[in-house]
């Protein structure tokens, strides 16, 4: 009977909220950083300070440069993602749904995938000039592969027993694709989308630092020419925040589109 007594964590007394516990270390690091910078322990030429970064953020936000650059970068990322993503989706569907499509596409795509596509930057500039085209195409190329691979894998991973079910209940080929194969492949496709978003952003960092006259990457290059460390670090922080937001958007899509899974995962 004595086993029945269970000890619960003491409630109320000296219980630090979780948010505070989790924020403690990052805030401490920022404070230490600021103190070291203020007392000149850290060379300002190499590293800025948190306050300077906020000041830079404020300055570029007020004069509009930050939002203009951010907007241009976002549009490029989105255009590239839409182009590469939809092509990846189409190719993934074609290769996943038919042997003919697989034989025609898969080996070629796998071969191209092994190219380090960031190494193509000079070629793309040579081919497509200095305008928006090479940047957007580079993002498209980078986002194509994760979507293609995951859609293909998702479709091929559909359980044989569910396909058998569809066949024995008289589903047409189209109904089989719509009701069984595509929903079953969706979780994988969304994983591909998540990877793609990360890659789109990464590609832009590179693509915008070459011969650019606008965008976040250009902001970094300009700041580095003027030795404005605080601006460089501020843009890096903006990159990180956008990355987090993009991930949150896909997660939101996932919980909406995969709500049938939610009760199963149990919070």
């Amino acid at each position, binding site marked *: 009977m004595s086993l029945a007594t269970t000890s619960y964590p003491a409630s109320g007394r000296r219980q630090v909220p979780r948010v505070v516990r989790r924020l403690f270390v990052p805030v401490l690091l920022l404070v230490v950083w600021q103190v070291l910078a203020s007392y000149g322990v850290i060379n300002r030429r190499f590293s800025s300070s948190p306050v300077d970064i906020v000041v830079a953020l404020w300055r570029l936000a007020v004069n509009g440069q930050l939002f203009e650059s951010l907007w241009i970068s976002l549009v490029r990322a989105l255009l590239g993602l839409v182009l590469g993503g939809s092509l990846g989706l189409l190719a993934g569907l074609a290769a996943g749904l038919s042997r003919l499509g697989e034989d025609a596409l898969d080996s070629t795509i796998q071969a191209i995938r092994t190219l380090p596509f960031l190494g193509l930057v000079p070629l793309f500039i040579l081919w497509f000039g200095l305008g928006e085209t090479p940047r957007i195409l580079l993002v498209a190329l980078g986002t194509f592969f994760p979507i293609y691979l995951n859609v293909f894998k998702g479709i091929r991973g559909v359980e044989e*027993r*569910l396909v058998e079910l*569809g066949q*024995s*209940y*008289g589903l047409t080929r189209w*109904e089989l694709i719509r*009701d069984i194969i595509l929903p079953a492949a969706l979780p994988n496709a969304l994983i591909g989308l998540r990877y793609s978003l990360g890659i789109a952003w990464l590609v832009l960092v590179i693509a915008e630092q070459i011969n650019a006259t606008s965008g976040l990457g250009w902001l970094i290059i300009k700041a580095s020419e003027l030795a404005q460390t605080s601006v460089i670090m501020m843009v890096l922080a903006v990159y990180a925040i956008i990355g987090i937001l993009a991930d949150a958007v896909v997660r939101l899509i996932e919980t909406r589109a995969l709500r*049938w899974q939610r009760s*199963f995962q149990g919070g």
Partner: protein
Amino acid sequence: MSEVLSSGVALRNVSRTFGDRRVLSDIDLEIEEGEFLVIVGASGCGKSTLLKIIAGLDRGAEGEVHIEENRSIVFQDARLLPWKLVWENVVLGLRGDRRELRKRALAALDEVNLLPRADAWPLTLSGGEAQRVAIARALVRTPKLLLLDEPFAALDALTRLKMQQQVAALVEQHRLTTLFVTHDVDEAILLADRILLVEAGRIARTFDVALPRPRNRADARFIRLRRALLEGLGVSEDGDIATGEAPVPDHVSRYDRIAAPLAAE
């Protein structure tokens, strides 16, 4: 040929080989209209392959095969599509007005006492509930032939008993021709009009079950039939099996698992 089809299913001299492994040979089988036929056999005897042929899921058999076009099947696993609501699963593959389909689905779910779960996601169902949805899905299209492939094998003993009664009642009520595959001898005797014993890819014996329904496991004829079937399956009927109890070793081990932590205290 039309005469053959009217009685549902007819196989003549059918065999099935995978590579050089012969899984079925010389199968002659006919299912009469309204009959409840049970195929019993140990695992690996070919009974599932036989069902697949009759379900049209295996087209590689040699011999003369006539199968009923208007059939539906219940698999061992419920095979519900997790991304469709329960009622949508029930009317999978049926075409027509959505509201009309929903009405049909609800009626079918009502028959298996699952009306309250119509708008649930399948992953929230218990094993027994999921299998009842699968049965509703099979019944909603008013099949001429109902195929069940070890449908209760994955369920716990209590649920299995309830489901057996429910299926017996539904089949009787709808006057369905039914083919039921199982390795559970009691289940076979409870449900069947006729039992085929499959052994090493052949129909080894046929038993006509003339017992009145509902059937009683304690009935002397029931016990005699079970003994004969088990003998046919190569299981000794001495001791625990004939009493209708679960085999003793299983009991003991389960008991041990519960008892062990208590003893440790």
